[in-house]
């Protein structure tokens, strides 16, 4: 390699080190002008040197960084965690580019170019958001005048985005940009108080919030609409224009929950400027000197008419509230969710190992060993329960979120709706709680949009004017049930059927029970809303709700009565990690049926098989033959068994070779390759080291039902039924 290029890389890496340590000092807040100069110079030198060795891409990227360092140096930019994070990533990027050079690749690959471009874009968008903050700081001296003239005429919008926003592919910047179409954005302040240390930061998590001052003549609802796509994922506060006392009090009450001095709170809520605070503090100092009974800051501020007494009271109350919460929090320990996941994982492995040890003990025939193992597995079982409990959270928080949603939607649709929450203290696994929010949101929106009728219609049919919406959670046989119920119009059976025929989902004349008709709303491609409203009809149908719930190994069904309402019943397992299962054998393979689905086991009578249903004490049930479904090798044994399983209120039979009994086992998720595989929920490792597939009962039941339909259909209709199967995945 050319010696100049070599020198470039060697020195470049030194400059990067200087840049990095400078940035870290900057973040810690003990950076002086020398540090800023050093950082700037490092970027500057890299840029210059890159030009010398004719590496345009590095020159350009270093130039981008240099610009930010220059602005930091001149005080145009304020240091913030997100900025430093991005700049540090910029350093890393250059480091990668150097590494490429060492490997003899003068031009970076496409992926590296993309990383660079994306970093630059992120910096840009951060600056567009943060610039306001910097400007605000710079113009702090005039803030009261700005406040009085401009900002009080503005809507004050505080939005804190939920952590999953980025994972959902939503860029907060787009949301703000869209907000800009609703009026003129006068000021944007980035709220970075939720940013963790760099070492704890997950780049996929959104930590940011923004405070936006918007000049707009639109109504509150119309402004809130700008946040519709992120509504379920953010805390949103839209304060009307005008610096009324109430507004200040409200913003004080919603200040971040951190210990703050009184003055600081007043300044943060814009009730006081920092100059006024300084003045007040100065007064406080002068009166405190020598005074027997020193005044409080609040009294001084009120006395000087800088701030209304109500506001000071609100701030003091908030301070106390936060402090109390702090004490409360101290009694609990915050643990990283990741650590808990690891613990549950390990306990899961222990369960498997214990099963294997048990098996060996049984085989050895040694009584003392069996007994010791028995004691051990009992302890492990208790430990499993306890460790799972650590991850349990109450569903209440998720439910409470809907209060606001219901209120806003009801307003918007000009309906009166009362939300009743029951069973908020019901606990379930954190990982499930996180994922149930979206389906619930859809069901709630649906209930308000399609279920609950306008007040006149309700009164006409003898119902109270206010619609009742109920969110309910309770435990039921090893699982949890969540219900979303409304006292609205209920599902219109005829319209569903007509639509399903129109969509080709069923064939005219096909005999369907009411339940089967109602179930059609969960079939992909079905939507009953005649007009797609912006509230619930967004191309996401109930099929997605069902798919989301199935992914949690749960099921959803609807109970409805025309005229008196609908009740969506979601059944979920308590945890995703461990399962109480029932082991069955087919050929050489073994399968696990979730125990909560198993109702009974019987000997299989060949007689009914020809017609694809079995006769269970006079009841006709569809069945699935695992041997033919999974194409097991070998002949079926003389005696086959059938396991009667249920999912919701439906039942079906599963034909297996032999019944091997209960076991408790750890679920290993299937690789994404098998994502489209139906009927299998996961896999597990048995005590003897073999792999067993865990059956997805709701999916198998649908398969059984479809098989039954096929055999019942007249030949011409078979194609339609098969189409149904094809889309029902």
């Amino acid at each position, binding site marked *: 390699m050319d010696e100049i290029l070599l020198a470039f890389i060697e020195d470049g890496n030194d400059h990067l080190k200087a840049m990095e340590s400078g940035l870290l000092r900057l973040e810690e807040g003990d950076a002086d002008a020398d540090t800023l100069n050093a950082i700037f110079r490092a970027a500057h030198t890299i*840029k210059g040197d890159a030009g*010398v060795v004719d590496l345009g891409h590095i020159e350009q990227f270093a130039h981008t960084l240099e610009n930010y360092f220059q602005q930091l140096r001149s005080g145009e930019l304020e240091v913030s965690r997100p900025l430093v994070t991005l700049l540090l990533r910029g350093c890393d990027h250059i480091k990668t580019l150097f590494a490429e050079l060492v490997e003899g690749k003068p031009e970076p690959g496409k992926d590296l170019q993309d990383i660079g471009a994306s970093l630059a874009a992120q910096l840009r968008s951060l600056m567009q958001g943060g610039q306001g903050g910097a400007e605000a700081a710079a113009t702090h001296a005039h803030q009261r005048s700005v406040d009085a003239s401009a900002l009080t005429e503005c809507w004050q919008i505080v939005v804190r985005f939920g952590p999953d926003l980025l994972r959902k592919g939503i860029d907060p910047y787009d949301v703000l940009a869209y907000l800009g179409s609703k009026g003129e954005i006068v000021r944007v302040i980035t709220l970075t108080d939720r940013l963790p240390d760099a070492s704890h930061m997950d780049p996929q998590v959104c930590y940011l919030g923004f405070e936006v001052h918007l000049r707009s003549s639109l109504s509150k609802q119309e402004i809130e609409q700008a946040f519709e796509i992120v509504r379920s994922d953010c805390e949103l506060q839209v304060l009307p224009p005008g610096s009324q006392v109430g507004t200040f009090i409200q913003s004080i009450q919603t200040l971040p929950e951190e210990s703050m001095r009184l003055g600081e709170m007043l300044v943060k809520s814009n009730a006081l400027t920092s100059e006024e605070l300084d003045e007040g503090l100065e007064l406080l100092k002068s009166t405190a000197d020598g005074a027997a009974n020193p005044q409080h800051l609040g009294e001084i501020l009120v006395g000087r008419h800088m701030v209304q007494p109500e506001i000071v009271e609100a701030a003091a109350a908030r301070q106390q509230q936060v402090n109390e919460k702090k004490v409360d929090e101290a009694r609990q320990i915050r643990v990283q969710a990741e650590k808990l996941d690891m613990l549950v994982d390990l306990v899961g492995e222990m369960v498997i190992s214990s099963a294997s040890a048990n098996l060996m003990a049984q085989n050895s025939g040694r009584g003392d060993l069996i007994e010791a193992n028995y004691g051990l597995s009992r302890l492990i079982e208790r430990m499993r329960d306890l460790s799972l409990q650590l991850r349990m959270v109450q569903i209440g928080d998720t439910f409470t979120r809907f209060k606001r949603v219901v209120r806003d939607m009801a307003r918007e649709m000009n309906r009166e709706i009362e939300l009743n929450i029951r069973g908020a203290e019901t606990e379930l696994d954190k990982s499930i709680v996180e994922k149930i929010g979206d389906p619930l949101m859809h069901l709630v929106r649906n209930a308000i949009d399609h279920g609950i009728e306008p007040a006149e219609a309700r009164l006409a049919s003898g119902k109270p004017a206010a619609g009742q919406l109920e969110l309910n959670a309770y435990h039921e046989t090893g699982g949890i049930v969540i219900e979303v119920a409304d006292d609205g119009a209920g599902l219109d059976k005829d319209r569903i059927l007509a639509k399903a025929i129109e969509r080709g989902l069923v064939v005219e004349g096909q005999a369907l029970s009411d339940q089967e008709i109602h179930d059609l709303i969960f079939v992909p491609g079905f939507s009953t809303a005649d007009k797609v409203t912006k509230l619930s009809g967004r191309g996401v149908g109930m099929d997605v709700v069902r798919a989301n719930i199935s992914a949690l190994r749960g099921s959803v069904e609807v109970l409805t009565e025309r005229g008196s309402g609908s009740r969506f019943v979601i059944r979920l397992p308590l945890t995703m990690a461990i399962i109480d299962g029932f082991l069955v054998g087919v050929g050489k393979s073994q399968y696990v049926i979730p125990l909560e689905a198993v109702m009974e086991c019987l000997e299989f009578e060949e007689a009914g098989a020809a017609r694809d249903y079995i006769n269970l004490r006079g009841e006709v049930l569809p069945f699935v033959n695992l041997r033919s479904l999974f194409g097991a090798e070998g002949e079926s044994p003389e005696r086959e068994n059938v396991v009667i399983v249920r999912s919701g209120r439906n039942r079906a039979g599963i034909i297996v070779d032999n019944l091997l009994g209960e076991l408790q086992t750890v679920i290993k998720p299937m690789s994404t390759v098998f994502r489209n595989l139906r009927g299998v929920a996961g896999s597990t490792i048995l005590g003897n080291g073999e792999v067993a597939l865990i059956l997805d009962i709701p999916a198998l039941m649908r398969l059984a039902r479809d098989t039954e339909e096929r055999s019942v259909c007249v030949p011409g209709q078979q194609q339609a039924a098969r189409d149904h199967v094809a889309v029902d995945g």
Partner: protein
Amino acid sequence: MSSKMIYLYVDDSRVSRMKIRQLVQQARPDWELIEATSGEEAIAKTAGSCPDLISIDINMPGMNGMEAVGELRKNCPNARFVLLSSNIQEEMHRQARDLGVGFVEKPITESCIAKVLAYFE
């Protein structure tokens, strides 16, 4: 111009210095080259013997190029100066003109050095 020219270049970047040396050696193999990494070092090096030509980077830690020119002038009143900078704002040009020195835009490339040499000769 006499054949034995002494050229001092001041730059804090090793890469830039290496490049200057490489390019000038190619173009003027008979010149004597002296290098300094900072304004301070340049002043120390010019205390005894004076170069004929001096090029200085503006942006350096410690004394910047402009300041260095002022000091170096005292040591070497007859030397010709060129300021080098990637900062091409008009202000820089003006300041260079006011100081009565040349101004050439960085980065150090063949054409950049050609301009420096053209200014010197």
